[in-house]
């Protein structure tokens, strides 16, 4: 692209290069691979997660290209099944679940609570290695021939019938689960024990509240996933009759176990994003968030209710009618804390002084897409409607609105918000705004038609489909290509900014929060002196009076 300015990088106006920070305190490979600095580990995660995102994205692109014609003539049927499985497995377990907690959480939790590091720095490094080991198994399964069970691994197909690399993939996910448990454990202990003096629970940033709730889910939920995978493995290897009725097992049992983890896992993906948005909105509105305590407690409420609703994935499976009723009602209860958040973010804009830098655009995009995803959640929780839309593209659209529209918008918003803190450089603002807008429109063009497709009756995971569904599928595929371009931009200009980005100050957005009180990039020990907190979070009104700013930059 020729638009990018080619002028030679101006020597930084920044303090002379004498200042040591976490990025220049050692350049050797070992200084990265053996680091126990939470900020370096966050960057290790950033690089590896981006790698998996690209692989998962390529699989999605091929799937969408293939669906442009109803005959499915781009790839073979086996390949198609392996592609959507790879897309799901990689995006869920290796991108969405670790994305915000492992990258932004690792980077920010100690900084935000005024600590020098997490409670267990070595455990933190270990969790990255475990993640990579799990990823290696899954990549091996892909290269060796792939797996075709779908990311849900429903038994008895996965345990008895599939002839693909189920075991290698399952081992990969099993191992990665431990990384999730360790990260969650580390956060819980750090947030309890390592807060700076004066940082009471109700002075905590809302991002910390959401990470705390997320960590609880990771610690309590992930072992159940591990158990279900272990049981599938035992059935495959030794013929234990747990899920296959021919051996005396129960296939519904697998679904209960699987969703007992995988439904809360959706909240592992979305809660941290909500935390990010709760940071961005006050900053770019220059006002305290409306209903701080309600936003904080709603995170906890979502985490708790999130464990009680797994059965709404089983409305047509053969679970009893009465179980269906209970799970449906509980699902509606989760909607309330989620809606409370949307209400509070919107109300936070009232009488604000709003500016629209890239992170704010992502935050607003998040609210829009999350609202759409959340409202369609009411459709799938309504029993009689779910019977019709279950396992159709309606559900595909619904969870992409939540998991991609919600989680990824929050993730990208957070990356842009804290990028100057992480790297000490600014990204090119106009490119960033353009890509945020592209992603928003690309996303809607991709997934909105899928709601209609689903209600018209197109089942999910179909390689070949009736020709009357083609127009909507072509629209969706066109949107996907815009989305792909939108995702490609940040990948490029963020890398570019590492070398050519404008050097930035410690607090480019004039934000409150301890992480902005230390230089950018932060020194290895985070703070030269332990900060003492005397005030609530987000007192932007007073901040602006004292500093005399009208807002960011």
């Amino acid at each position: 692209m020729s638009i990018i300015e080619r002028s030679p990088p101006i020597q930084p106006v920044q303090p002379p290069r004498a200042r040591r920070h976490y990025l220049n305190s050692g350049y050797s490979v070992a200084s990265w691979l053996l680091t126990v600095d939470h900020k370096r580990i966050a960057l290790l995660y950033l690089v590896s997660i981006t790698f998996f995102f690209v692989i998962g994205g390529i699989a999605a692109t091929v799937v969408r290209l293939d669906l442009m014609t109803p005959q499915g003539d781009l790839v073979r049927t086996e390949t198609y099944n392996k592609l959507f499985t790879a897309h799901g497995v990689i995006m869920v377990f290796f991108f969405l679940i670790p994305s915000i907690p492992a990258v932004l959480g690792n980077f920010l939790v100690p900084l935000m609570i005024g600590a020098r590091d997490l409670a267990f720095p070595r455990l933190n490094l270990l969790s990255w290695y475990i993640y990579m080991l799990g990823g290696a198994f899954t990549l091996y399964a892909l290269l060796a021939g792939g797996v075709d069970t779908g990311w849900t691994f429903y038994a008895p197909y996965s345990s008895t019938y599939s002839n693909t690399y189920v075991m290698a993939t399952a081992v990969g996910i099993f191992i990665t689960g431990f990384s999730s448990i360790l990260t969650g454990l580390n956060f819980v202990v750090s947030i309890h024990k390592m807060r700076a003096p004066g940082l009471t629970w109700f002075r905590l940033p809302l991002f910390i509240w959401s990470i705390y709730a997320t960590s609880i889910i990771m610690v309590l939920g992930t072992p159940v996933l591990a158990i279900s995978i272990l049981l599938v493995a035992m059935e495959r290897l030794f013929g234990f009759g747990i899920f296959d009725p021919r051996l005396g097992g129960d296939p519904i049992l697998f679904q209960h176990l699987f969703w007992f983890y995988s439904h809360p896992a959706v909240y592992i993906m979305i809660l941290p994003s909500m935390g990010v948005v709760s940071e961005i909105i006050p900053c770019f509105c220059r006002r305290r968030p409306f209903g701080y305590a309600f936003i904080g407690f709603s995170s906890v409420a979502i985490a708790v209710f999130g464990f009680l609703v797994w059965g709404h994935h089983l409305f047509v499976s053969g679970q009893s009618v009465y179980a269906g009723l209970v799970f449906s009602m509980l699902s509606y209860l989760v909607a309330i804390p989620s809606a409370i958040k949307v209400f509070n973010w919107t109300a936070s804009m009232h009488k604000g002084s709003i500016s629209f830098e890239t992170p704010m655009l992502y935050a607003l995009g998040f609210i829009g897409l999350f609202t759409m995803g959340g409202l369609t959640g009411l459709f799938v929780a309504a029993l009689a409607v779910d019977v019709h839309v279950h396992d159709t593209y309606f559900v595909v659209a619904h969870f992409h609105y939540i998991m991609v529209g919600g989680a990824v918008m929050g993730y990208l918003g957070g990356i842009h918000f804290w990028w100057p803190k992480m790297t000490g450089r600014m990204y090119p603002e106009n490119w960033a705004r353009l890509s945020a807008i592209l992603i928003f429109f690309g996303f809607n063009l991709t997934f909105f038609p899928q709601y209609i497709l689903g209600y018209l009756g197109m089942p999910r995971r179909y390689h070949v489909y009736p020709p009357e569904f083609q127009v909507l599928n072509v629209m969706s595929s066109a949107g996907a290509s815009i989305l792909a371009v939108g995702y490609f931009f940040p990948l490029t200009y963020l890398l570019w900014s590492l070398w050519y980005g404008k050097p930035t100050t410690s607090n480019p957005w004039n934000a409150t929060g301890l992480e902005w009180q230390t230089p950018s990039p932060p020194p290895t020990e985070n703070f030269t002196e332990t900060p003492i907190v005397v005030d609530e979070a987000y007192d932007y009104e007073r901040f602006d009076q004292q500093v005399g700013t009208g807002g960011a930059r």
Partner: protein
Amino acid sequence: MPEQASTLAPHVDRLYLSLIGMSLFFTLLITGFILYFAIKYRRGNLGVDRSSRTHRGVSMEVSVMAVLFTLSMGIFAWGATLYLSSSRIPSDGMDVRVVAKQWMWKFQHSNGRREINELHVPLGQPVKLTMISEDVIHSLYVPAFRIKRDVLPGSYASCWFEATRTGEFHLFCAEYCGTNHSRMVGRIVVMEPAEYGDWLGGTSPTESPAVAGERVFENLRCHTCHRSNGVATRGPPLAGLFGHEVKLADGRTIVADDTYLRESILRPSSKVVAGYQPIMPTFDGQVDEEQLIQLIAYIKSLAQP
């Protein structure tokens, strides 16, 4: 909106449309507020009052929650009532037996006529499907009827519909079941009752499942223990059994339905009838799903004098 071709479809669509209306309302409300605030309170707009802003508003939060709670419980109740009423299977319907396998749907009508990936049904009469899978989980889905039900291996699932329009409608497998999942499709043909009658009897005479079941029953020599004349011998009598309560040796009482009979044929010692010894051998591996269906149809026929 897809075609409505069953008695259930208009009800589901009414709830669906109400949900769309409600979603539209909330989406527009939130978007409206965001746009209004974004324009009015944008940083460059200097002549706007930003003073005395609240940031707690407990009473407002509580009232918002109360409204949300009432609304969501209302939708829950609506969806639940509809679901409950649609899961009650009418007793006067015609029976169709369904066996799903990778990757086809096999149907059998009560007079014995078989079809693959196609099901002919009459207009305006409830049709009850009793379904089982020979391998993995499948799911029978007819969008025009708004019905879907997972078909499990190892136990019978059932669902029903009453068609309200003649024509051909998509039949899909909705639960991912392996390589040719997307080719496990077919059609439901709804015909005028008279036309259906002609179609059903129109081809070469077929054997009803009950008759076929009697032959299986004799071939497997079941009658040596289970006399059909109602006289108790080594095994409990089968006449008048289906649909009635059975007292088990462990004190429980169970209704003798398809699932119970199937289990008793495959795993006879798991639920032994009170007063009998667990001496029956298993027939697991000797009968396939279709023969099981025939055996049960035969036992069922003994129940009606």
